[in-house]
């Protein structure tokens, strides 16, 4: 049975004998057919286990981002939410003595072999997150100075450790491959990493202290 291009709530999509109802659909008991619950394009995902049925679902899409200054084909309108354990890329917005405030820009899937996970998706909205002082490094946590680890504007790779409260996710950079991946020097030039704690400005030759992520 071919799926319609656009389904509206209440539209019958298929029999429950052939499909499993997924997100965005519901089962109508009397007629044992799967009906749509939201408006959207129905898709079906192939069966997970041998012998089971494909799943019929309607993904919920956000409105296409119109506030972005430059349109990007990478900014999708399916919002991948960060979950505990997902690798994220974020940008530092504020450095305080006990924590670092960041905004999450890109979410990768669950951690892969090298701690980086699979395909990353650019978030349609920025998510607020916090890296606490004790989560910046795995060792010598009490000796950490946040200003020696991060500066405003740095791009950081971190891992979500907690969904947190209404305002913030909580991240950690306490692994070798987590930390600052891109930084600008005080002179304004892009720097490259030279050790786990220093970036170097190629133009001025100055080095600056950061908690550097180990390049793969």
């Amino acid at each position, binding site marked *: 049975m071919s799926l319609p291009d656009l389904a*509206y*709530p*209440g539209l019958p999509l298929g029999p429950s004998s052939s499909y499993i109802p997924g997100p965005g659909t519901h089962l*109508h008991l009397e007629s044992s057919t799967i009906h749509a619950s939201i408006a*959207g394009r129905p898709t079906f995902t192939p069966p997970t286990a041998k012998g089971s049925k494909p799943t019929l679902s309607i993904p919920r899409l956000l*409105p296409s981002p*119109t506030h972005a200054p430059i349109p990007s084909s990478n900014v999708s309108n399916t919002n991948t939410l960060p979950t505990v354990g997902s690798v994220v890329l974020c940008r530092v917005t504020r450095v305080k003595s006990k924590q670092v405030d960041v905004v999450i820009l890109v979410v990768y899937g669950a951690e892969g072999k090298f701690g980086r996970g699979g395909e990353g998706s650019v978030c349609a909205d920025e998510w607020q997150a916090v890296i606490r002082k004790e989560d910046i490094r795995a060792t010598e946590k009490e000796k950490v100075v946040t200003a020696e680890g991060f500066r405003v504007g740095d791009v950081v790779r971190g891992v979500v450790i907690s969904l947190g409260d*209404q305002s913030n996710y909580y991240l950690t950079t306490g692994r070798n491959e987590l930390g600052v991946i891109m930084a600008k020097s005080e002179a304004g030039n892009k720097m490259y990493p030279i050790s786990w704690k220093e970036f170097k400005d190629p133009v001025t030759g100055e080095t600056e202290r950061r908690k550097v992520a180990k390049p793969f």
Partner: protein
Amino acid sequence: MPLDTSTYHLSLLRLDGRRWNELRRLHAQISTQASADGSSYLEMGNTKIICTVSGPAEIRGGGRREGVERDNAVVNVEVGVAGFSGMDRKRRRGDKRTTEMQNTIASAFTSTLFTHLYPHSTISINLHILSQDGSLLAVCLNAATLALIDAGVPMKDYIVACTSGLTPPASTLGGSRGGNSETSDPLLDLNGMEEQELPFLTGAGGTVGGDVGGGGGWV
């Protein structure tokens, strides 16, 4: 200006040129307000309504009140009538009719939205009436349906509504009683003038089957 209904059965045309079962011009848009989770703008003839939906959102103040079951989301409706919407400029504040309309709309959507998916939450529907020319409850329900679909709130069916009324039987106009051959004609989608003169009700329902309710109005 009293409605002259004496010529109804002759020409079968209403004062605005419609037949008994013709609806007024319908104009609808969704996603009109980027800031809201879902929004719509609906015109049925000269009745014009903006609807915005936000939620499901957490209830302020914890929501842990005794005796209140919060296993389902609560649908909260607010209707605001603009002062310039009617024939005379009037600010209706806390009107009983408005409150009744709010409750009707809230209970209608509570029965079709999947509120069990969002416990301890509120879905807020805000309706702003810009212009009134009859069928107010029906247009509110239709506009709210569009805004809820735009917001992506899952529902088992969508609600559509329309008003229907009865013309007076032609025999009563001349004063004589017991018109055996003269029956009333039904009318669909009453405008403001017709609503003031004729008995009508607002019927609402879904497409999948089952009634979700309606409200009656008598002058």
